[in-house]
């Protein structure tokens, strides 16, 4: 049975179809979820070190849109068209989702220009860009809450609300302290995860040896609150064409004190044009 990697065995056991055209089917298998049975009330932390973990953001965005959830995407790093074009490769149209009200998209780059060069009458979610000293992220929280709180007519159009942030480290670069960002995450979790029974996914960069204390504080603080941590790392030996990095998945239970160890799995991956393939360490098809 040479060449049978772990993901293939799991697919056989679960009987899931491996040919779905949306998001990354192999990652769904690794995480043991499908859009139909997405969990609720969870905080997922995405973390990347020495590599680019943005493919995980694209995965969760299309995953939750496929799962018929209402998504509020705070996209601070790239433009709308970038996410839209990648999402189309994964089988989801962000423009259509926005039209029908399923997606609320805050485009950080474009909004920052608006708020920076012109004084706004209403408090803008990125109001802190105009402030001289470090403020807080309350306007951003208000924006998220307003976006995800269901309308008063009582009819639940969408499954559960989801907040997606790409990424939190940018907020630190823009002058927010780690405490302010942790407060923001705390408020969002209270509203989105506990009150509205939704999910939250956030990406934080791990600066590694760059001695970024604020970032480390943020990362450690979030790690303790998360239910699921997906950590992508570049290979320690440097660049490789066939293996782009390593993904470590850690399932946690933040509410209970863990006397026993949390479950964790490690895989290596290669990113392709429309998909990411995962394999056990050292089992890359290019090497076998």
């Amino acid at each position, binding site marked *: 049975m040479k060449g049978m990697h772990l993901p293939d065995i799991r697919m056989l056991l679960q009987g899931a179809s491996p040919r779905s055209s949306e998001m990354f089917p192999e990652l769904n298998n690794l995480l043991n979820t499908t859009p139909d049975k997405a969990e609720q009330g969870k905080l997922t932390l995405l973390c990347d070190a*020495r590599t*680019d973990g*943005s*493919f995980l953001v*694209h995965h969760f965005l299309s995953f939750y849109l496929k799962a018929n959830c209402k998504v509020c995407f705070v996209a601070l790093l*790239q*433009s*709308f*068209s*970038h996410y*839209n*074009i*990648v999402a*189309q*490769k994964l089988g989801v149209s962000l*423009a259509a989702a926005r039209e029908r009200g399923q997606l609320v998209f805050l485009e*950080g*780059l*474009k909004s*920052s*220009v608006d708020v*920076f*060069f012109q004084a706004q009458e209403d408090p803008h979610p990125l109001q802190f*860009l*105009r*402030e*001289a*000293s*470090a403020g807080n992220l309350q306007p951003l929280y208000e924006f998220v809450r307003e976006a995800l709180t269901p309308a008063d007519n009582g009819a639940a159009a969408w499954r559960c609300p989801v907040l997606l942030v790409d990424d939190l*480290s*940018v907020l*630190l*670069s*823009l*002058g927010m302290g780690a405490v302010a960002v942790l407060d923001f995450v705390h408020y969002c979790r209270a509203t989105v995860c506990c009150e509205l029974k939704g999910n939250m996914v956030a990406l934080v*960069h791990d*600066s590694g*040896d*760059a*001695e*970024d*204390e*604020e*970032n480390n504080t943020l990362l450690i603080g979030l790690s303790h609150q998360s239910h699921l941590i997906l950590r992508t790392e*570049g290979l320690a*030996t*440097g*660049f490789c*064409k066939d293996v782009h990095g390593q993904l470590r998945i850690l399932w946690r239970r933040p509410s209970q004190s863990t006397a026993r160890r949390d479950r964790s799995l490690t895989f290596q991956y290669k*990113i*392709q*044009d*429309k998909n*990411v393939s995962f394999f056990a360490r050292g089992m890359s098809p290019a090497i076998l």
Partner: protein
Amino acid sequence: MAAVATCGAGAGGTESMAAATSKSNVTSFQRRGPRARGTDSGGPRLVSIAGTRPSVRNGQLLVSTGLPALDQLLGGGLAVGTVLLVEEDKYSIYSPLLFKYFLAEGIINGHTLLVASAKEDPADILQELPAPLLDDSCKKEFDEDVCNKKPESDIKMKIAWRYQLSPKMEVGPVTSSRFGHYYDVSKRIPRELIETSKWHGFFLPEKMSSADKVECCSLTPGYMKLLHFIQNIIYEEGFDGSNPQKKQRNILRIGIQSLGLPLWGDDVCCSENCDSSHSLSKFLYILRGLLRTSLSACIITMPTHLIQNKAIIARVTNLSDTVVALESFVGSERETNPLYKDYHGLIHIRQIPRLNNLICDESDVKDLAFKLKRKLFTIEAEWTVRERDREKGLSFVVGSPSNDRHGRCTTLI
């Protein structure tokens, strides 16, 4: 100078420019403040701008950096709407060259330039741009090199056989290319070319002397003024398509020299715990926001070797799109190392953006060295160094792997 040509429209999402022509053949942007790249309106027709070409991978509009070898390393060129950050070498000897190549390429292509500097008058910078190489003279230049290298290229590599098949980095001049030109650094650009070109200069000491009311913000005043200046030019000249009077079909090339120096009023290079530690990263974020919504590309050189707080370098890297670092051998132990005697320094491609895509065009070769010859700045893969020294009987073991290189342990005799 903008050549107007229509290209076939592909699937809606993967087209590169929102400079759409409406059905009645009047060129205009379709809506106020459009995004400069990508479009979700169906079937735009592309207007071809001089000096640009669409990327093979994702239809992104690319401009040349002025160095064809660097264009190839970056996956075809610099994407419009992005920032190229050049980490300066230690004594800032070679990074001004990359800066000048970028600007010279803009002049040759008829792009509008915006040059910002705190230490040199932009008019002086433009006077010192290199002259473009005409096709036959630069062909002669390359022929000289080919003759010199012929003996080496015939030798079969016995141990490093894997490298035999990898492509050479040097790119010969294509005689009829409109994308990417070669320049002669020993000559100055003709004055007529500068006079006919359109450029805006931002010289910080001049701008700071005028007593404008600057709104209090955590940005240093120098950065504030520069941002307002750039935003003004983009709006006034219609690069973002929001000005109904101006229909611009040209690229704005922005060059910011030595950002982060104390001359800008920023103390990020002075101490580790600086007061305005967020000023630089905030500036970059808003600059990138301006670029993303306009037809512009920007090169920034930054003396990162002076920044003592490594966290700031990491943040600045994350907030830039393409990052290239130059490391010159001047004053270092490598200057006398026989390995590197033909080269002036190393060039590291630290980051390439993944735009509209999950993957990017990373070059397989990570060890690149540069050399400033009498007229040309060339980039070569580092293994050619070893090959040349092999026949001279030197023996050495390649050093330990680092994060941005292949791990190697070949011994050549």
